């Protein structure tokens, strides 16, 4: 046991004496979570609306006021004709344009039909989609009022009211926090463990450790242990940050969430050990964990692209990424507040992966040099 503690102490000394390691292990997760949580947001705020039409027209005025009163939308400009829209978009002075037909008021009242055109900036389709739906929402509200005004009473009509359960404000941090949590834990556990073992191989100290009477299994465990501790610390700090700064709720059981995280950390450590067996130098280890872990985790775990819209073959690939299952579970527990029963499938898949990876990596750890 004394050997074990001496080993862990040594491992912590390595970590705390290397500024780069400290940076990766302690600072990067916090920066990442803040970056993803704040800077990279898919919400649209302060949309600048340009208006084309006759602003003296009373009905047009009403619509413009309606748009301007929307908290996401601001009318910034009144243009005289549609030709001016394109230069505005090009100079990035407007995000969307709303065009009213000529004689809007009279057409609406006499003909009962007037048209409004919404022109979005398609060079950024996702944002344009969201902005145009905001604008048409605002116009729809006005339409409802008009209907009541003219018919005198509310006509029978179906109007869908959309509500997003669990995330009514559509905050993107609800999506990013679980994703980034998975990414960071994966990165620290796998990459740092792999690199620290491979470093011993590279500098030749592994030779001395193997020649010592310490059992190889203990070498592995004591190499992984400090990163386990650091990962738990990171998990806690991410959780605190996301709860108090990003205001992401923890609706489910904190205990269950921690248990799931621990399981994922163990799976990641096992992957790290496996990489350390394959890689002969630090550069290879870094490359394998960067290309082989971080990239697929980013792509397949649903942080950026939803897995459901991928071709079937890629969806199959995504199933073998442990982070995917972890992120699904974190979303269920944190956001939906699901209990144990609802995550049994994902939990057993991740547990199976962790057990298999751990068994393979311990078995393949060599008691001798290559």
């Amino acid at each position, binding site marked *: 046991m004394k050997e074990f503690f001496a080993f862990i102490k*040594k491992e912590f000394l390595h970590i705390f004496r290397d500024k780069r390691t400290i940076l990766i292990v302690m600072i990067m997760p916090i920066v990442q979570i803040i970056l993803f949580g704040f800077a990279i947001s898919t919400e649209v705020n302060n949309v600048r609306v340009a208006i084309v039409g006759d602003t003296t027209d009373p009905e047009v005025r009403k619509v413009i006021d309606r748009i301007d009163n929307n908290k996401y939308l601001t009318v910034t400009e009144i243009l005289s004709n549609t030709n001016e829209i394109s230069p505005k978009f090009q100079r990035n002075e407007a995000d969307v344009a709303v065009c009213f037909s000529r004689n809007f008021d009279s057409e609406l009242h006499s003909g009962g039909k007037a048209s409004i055109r919404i022109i979005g900036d398609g060079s950024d389709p996702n944002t344009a989609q969201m902005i145009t739906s905001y604008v048409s929402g605002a116009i729809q509200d006005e339409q409802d009022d008009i209907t009541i005004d003219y018919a005198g009473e509310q006509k029978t009509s179906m109007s869908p009211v959309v509500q997003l359960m669990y995330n009514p404000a559509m905050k993107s941090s609800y999506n990013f926090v679980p994703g980034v949590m998975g990414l960071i834990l994966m990165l620290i556990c796998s990459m740092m463990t792999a690199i620290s073992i491979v470093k011993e191989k590279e500098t030749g100290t592994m*030779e001395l450790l193997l020649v010592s009477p310490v059992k190889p299994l203990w070498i592995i465990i004591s190499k992984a242990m400090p990163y386990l501790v650091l990962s738990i610390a990171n998990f806690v700090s991410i959780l605190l940050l996301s709860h108090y700064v990003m205001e992401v709720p923890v609706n489910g059981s904190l205990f269950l969430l921690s248990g799931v995280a621990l399981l994922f950390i163990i799976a990641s450590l096992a992957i790290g050990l496996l990489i350390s067996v394959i890689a002969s130098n630090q550069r290879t280890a870094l490359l394998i964990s960067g290309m082989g872990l971080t990239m697929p985790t980013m792509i397949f775990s649903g942080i950026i692209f939803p897995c459901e819209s991928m071709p079937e073959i890629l969806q199959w690939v995504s199933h073998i990424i442990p982070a995917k299952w972890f992120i699904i579970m974190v979303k269920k527990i944190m956001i939906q507040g699901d209990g144990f029963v609802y995550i049994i499938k994902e939990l057993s898949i991740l547990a199976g992966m962790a057990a298999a990876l751990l068994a393979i990596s311990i078995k393949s750890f060599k008691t*001798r040099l290559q």
Partner: protein
Amino acid sequence: MNAIEIEHISKNYKTVSAVKDISLSVKEGEIFGLIGPDGAGKTTLFRIMTTLMLADAGKGRICGFDIVKDYAQIRQIIGYMPGRFSLYQDLSVQENIDFFATMFGTTLQDNYETIREIYSQIEPFRKRKAGKLSGGMKQKLALCCALVHKPSVLFLDEPTTGVDAVSRKDFWNMLYRIKASGVTVFVSTPYMDEAGLCDRMALIRQGNIIDTGTPAEIVAKYPYALLAVKGTPMYPLLKELRKLDGVISCFSFGDSHHLAYDPAKTQKENILAAAVAAGFKDCTAWEIKPGIEDCFMQLSEQ
């Protein structure tokens, strides 16, 4: 019982064979030298003996323990100092020693006497990081770490490579003291001048042991008479001497040429006369006793 006993050890790396059918035995309490140039297979043999590597063929015993089956027991009783400095550069001298002592289930205090003489030299720097030590200091630290658990057999892979002449001499004095405390020392070196310092030794070349014995035995086996020859210019002289009748071989050794000849066919006077006749100036020649390097050269020729 012999401390080290290996029989017919062979090891191949893909197509290259590093060690070919090597058998050696090292008595308890002696300093045994493995002498050979770089790439002769010394490190491979060390790794096989220290249970770090499996041989393709052959078997071996360290203090009676089988190098394959009983690797765990062997790891308890040996000390190993790899050729490259392999300690933690970011840990201090003290931390390194403490760590390795604990790994071997002991403490610096318990075994202070064992390493006192060496450790006392680096003790003033015990707070310094190992990476910031000089070459000689690093080597002393590595030796301390290898000795801290009182091993029965100490394996030193090229401990004096890259160390200055004074430190090398110091180092060999330390080895004698370690030997005096009853430890068997198995040391490798590419320097032939260190060979004479061993109790017994083996000459290794391209994975083959070409001779074993005490330094005196190996030198005594040298079959020819040996001359040191000087003259200007030196390099053409070497070529000229090699052409002479009765000359077996001639190699450049620092400031003179060592020339082996068959006393039945030629004499020192003949050789000297031939050199003068060929137009070389300041020619001198004198009889010398063969050294280990001469023996190595002669054995390599075969």
